[in-house]
């Protein structure tokens, strides 16, 4: 890739600039700063859409009562049951139980705190799906 061909397509990275290596006029490799490249931006958008779609499906399931608010926070943090189990220090089976409204209702104060801490939110916020979170 030549220096003049380095793409500058802004994407999802909030203006963060990365580095690529490209060949300058005299044939030497130099570092060139770039804002992104359209194919990658497209790939990232697809991945983002997939996460958003997933999130919407989960919110719908919470509304009809087949999942607990924990499912929302888990998906929002881009985790699956296995990873959340690792963070919470419990078994995957337990996490799955807590993802159901019945299991969620039986959570102790301490368990609630553990989950809230992982997501960087308050225990109150953990009960509400789609609250603003700050992790």
């Amino acid at each position, binding site marked *: 890739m030549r220096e003049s061909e380095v793409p500058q397509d802004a994407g999802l990275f909030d203006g963060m600039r990365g580095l690529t290596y490209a060949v300058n006029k005299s044939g030497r*490799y130099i570092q060139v700063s770039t804002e992104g*490249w359209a194919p990658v931006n497209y790939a990232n958008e697809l991945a983002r859409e997939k996460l958003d779609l997933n999130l919407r499906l989960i919110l719908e399931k919470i509304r009809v009562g087949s999942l607990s608010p924990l499912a929302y926070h888990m998906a929002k943090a881009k985790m699956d049951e296995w990873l959340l189990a690792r963070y919470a220090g419990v078994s995957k089976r337990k996490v799955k139980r807590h993802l159901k409204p019945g299991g969620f209702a039986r959570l102790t104060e301490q368990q609630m705190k553990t989950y809230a801490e992982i997501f960087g939110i308050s225990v109150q916020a953990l009960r509400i799906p789609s609250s603003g979170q700050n992790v």
Partner: protein
Amino acid sequence: MTIEFQHHQSAHCESGVMSNLLRHEGLNIDEPLAFGIGSALFFAHIPFLKLDNNKIPLTTFRMNPGVILKRVTKLLGVGLTVERFGDVTKAMDAMDRRIEMGFPVGLQVGVFWLPFFPDALRFHFNAHNMVVYGKEGDEYMVSDPTLPEPVRCSARDMRKARFSKGPLAPHGKMYYITSITPDPPVKKAVLTGIKRTCFLMKNPFPIGGVNGIRYLAGRIRKWPGQMPEDQAILYLTNVIRMQEEIGTGGAGFRFLFAAFLQRAADRLPQREWLSAKSSEMTAIGDKWREFALMAAKICKKRNGVGDTFGSAADIVEECWMMERTFFADMCRNLKT
């Protein structure tokens, strides 16, 4: 306490941290040199490893994390102390102490917990590297080599990032240079790096090295028949992400390696031949970029991806042939 530390932006995190730490000690090793001496160039497509949370098979263009630190320090005779911890408080105290003593400390961290990254880059990848070179109150001064400028990070986020969980969990891993040799054998290290890269790429296993590229081409061909269209598209675009996302320097580290070969040409007797090899690697990189462009186009169109996946696979196969010739020639020339 803040250490005087020169921040240089780099394409890849691990080679960038290595280079920045070495330059802090006065060894002029830039990023391509660190990458090449660490023989980090690789390829593998591993369908049974699904680290992504969308359950997409792993495609990688480099060796496993940690290999650059290990190889570079070994070959250049640099003393690197690596520590891991079971306890968060102990890990943070040990880091604070090192900084007090004037050591810039390298860390392995989970990207997801770093607040200074844009949301789109914050996924659960646990083998990111950065340098901490100071502490002010409750905030750490961080030199993250993939960012243009140094940033700050709160102790709370730092604790989370250092003890992220999941695959490749860092367990608070921190490292710092304790000794250097005044006149390191750079030439020898460069040659060893090239040789090892050849050895790795030419390995006989079907899914890693040069063979892995052909394997990926075959898999891409099969994807549309094996799964719903949406998923096949997600799989293909994931290859693009692994190849081009911030951290590879373009074309899945191929340009970074070409830059390394150019630096090798300046130092080794086979000057012209290595320059020619560098240009050849640039052409291979351009071919990979062509694949990414084509793949994105195919996925955007959406209708009848069945046969169009084949044309993306064709380009990957071309990459395979080019890299096979490249490394076969390289091995032949370096044996003597």
